[in-house]
């Protein structure tokens, strides 16, 4: 998903810099959003364990940020 786009398979139309249509981008967008949900689930499960309060603590926030960065680096590697 991150190393190629479905629009690459088609030759670019002679229209100047129109880019892929919205419909062409939908499957990629769907996958991106699914990954987003998955990242949220994984990072929540790993980082948030304390339910004594309603707001996320600063340590949980920094854990989530790091989790997100690592997740992306894993996919890039």
């Amino acid at each position, binding site marked *: 998903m991150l190393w190629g786009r479905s629009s690459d398979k088609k030759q670019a139309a002679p229209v100047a810099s*129109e880019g892929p249509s*919205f419909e062409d981008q939908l499957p990629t967008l*769907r996958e991106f959003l699914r990954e987003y949900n998955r990242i949220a*689930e994984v*990072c*929540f499960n790993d980082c*948030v364990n304390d339910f*004594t309060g*309603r707001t996320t603590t600063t340590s949980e926030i920094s854990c989530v940020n790091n989790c997100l960065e690592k997740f992306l680096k894993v996919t890039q590697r």
Partner: protein
Amino acid sequence: MSNELNSNQLQAAGELEIEMMQDLYKRMTTACHKKCVIPRYKDSELTKGESVCIDRCVAKYMDVHDRIGKHLTTMTLQQQPSLQTQQANDPSRVVGSYK
């Protein structure tokens, strides 16, 4: 890419958003059930502690979800400056908060 979507595209975007919300709901309920409900089923009613835990769990899950969404949107915009004009009109439309 044009900033405006026709009605078919809007409908497709709306359906996608609903699908993602269902996915979010499913993951959230699974996560909060695992974190809050003790697997000793002596009683069918939720205890007060479990109910409070679930409330807090949902609040935190949505907060985490929003933060990640904002972070991802920022990173995506940094990588594709052509999208920045869209952001002014429609900040994080599909990855945005569901409040």
